[in-house]
């Protein structure tokens, strides 16, 4: 088992400083740097450069990376919720106000106990046809349906 005296080892490691590239290497390094910079400008898309600059900007800030992550997550969450509320389709919003109100009233009537309904309405509501379900009121007065009968019945 080797001892914990690292003097000799550290001397050996220090001698690694003598491993060096040829003297002309650093003279041509700057020239090569300029050449690559020009080539990169022609090759790299703008969004990648913008992204690297953004990352570098945040890396330089003093607040912890977790604080920035939390802030970004909160902003994205709020944006997501807001956009969902805006984009959610509402059937009533798609119809003219009078029709929407009429459908609302019809639903109210359908939910009432049948015993309290007038006879003519019991008969009407017992017709389980698709055409009735999709039928729009023919006449609407003060946002209440007056008649569902086609105009030919009058």
């Amino acid at each position: 088992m080797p001892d914990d005296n690292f003097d000799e080892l550290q001397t050996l490691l220090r001698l690694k400083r003598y491993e060096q590239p040829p003297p002309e290497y650093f003279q041509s390094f700057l020239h090569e740097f300029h050449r690559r910079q020009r080539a990169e400008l022609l090759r790299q898309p703008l969004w990648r450069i913008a992204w690297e600059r953004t990352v570098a900007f945040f890396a330089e800030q003093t607040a912890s990376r977790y604080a920035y992550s939390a802030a970004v997550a909160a902003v994205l969450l709020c944006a997501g919720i807001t956009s969902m509320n805006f984009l959610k389709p509402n059937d009533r919003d798609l119809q003219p106000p009078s029709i929407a109100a009429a459908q609302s009233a019809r639903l109210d009537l359908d939910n009432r106990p049948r015993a309290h309904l007038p006879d003519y309405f019991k008969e009407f509501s017992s017709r389980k046809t698709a055409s009735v379900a999709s039928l729009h009121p023919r006449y609407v007065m003060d946002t209440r349906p007056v008649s569902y009968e086609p105009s030919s019945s009058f």
Partner: protein
Amino acid sequence: MTTEAAASNAVPNEDNALIARTQAGDPSAFDVLVTKYSPRLYGLVYNMTSNHEDTNDLLQDIFAKAYRAINGFRGKSSFYTWIHSIGVNMTINFLKKRGRRYTLSLDDVDANIQNDKEFIELTSNSTSNPVREADLGELQQRLNEAMMRLSNEHRAVVTMFDIQGMPHAEISKILGVSEGTVRSRLFYAHRQLQNFLEEFRKK
């Protein structure tokens, strides 16, 4: 701290002026920074990769990245610390991608080593050290192989402390870890290297 490391830290104002000029749109000011820091950064990357060609490519990428990010530099740390942080992080990322498949591509040992006081002592006094038993080229290869057997993080610490002569505090800033972590990594890395070289000595 070595005189080289001390000199790099002693002129932050000069660096700040060059950075301000670069941020104002004068690319020649950045050229001065490249010329000034490329030898030290070369040593950092080279001793972590043990490959000259990889070092050259990485060094170009490091300065390119620094140039793109220079407008975000606010001077909270010295340019020296900042560019070394970029260098260490990019090199470690590169080594993770490269994995265990690599070939040593070593630079020549400068002839001035023959005049180095420590080298003379090491090759003449000790009776059982690896330098006496091996020629310089073989020793260089063994030492680099031993370095490459360390983890990337341990190799980074050894490179900065033992080869480049940085103080613990500077290394902790560059790596973003505590000084205690730097010291413990150093101790562990030294033990590992000692073991590897013991194996070499016994062969």
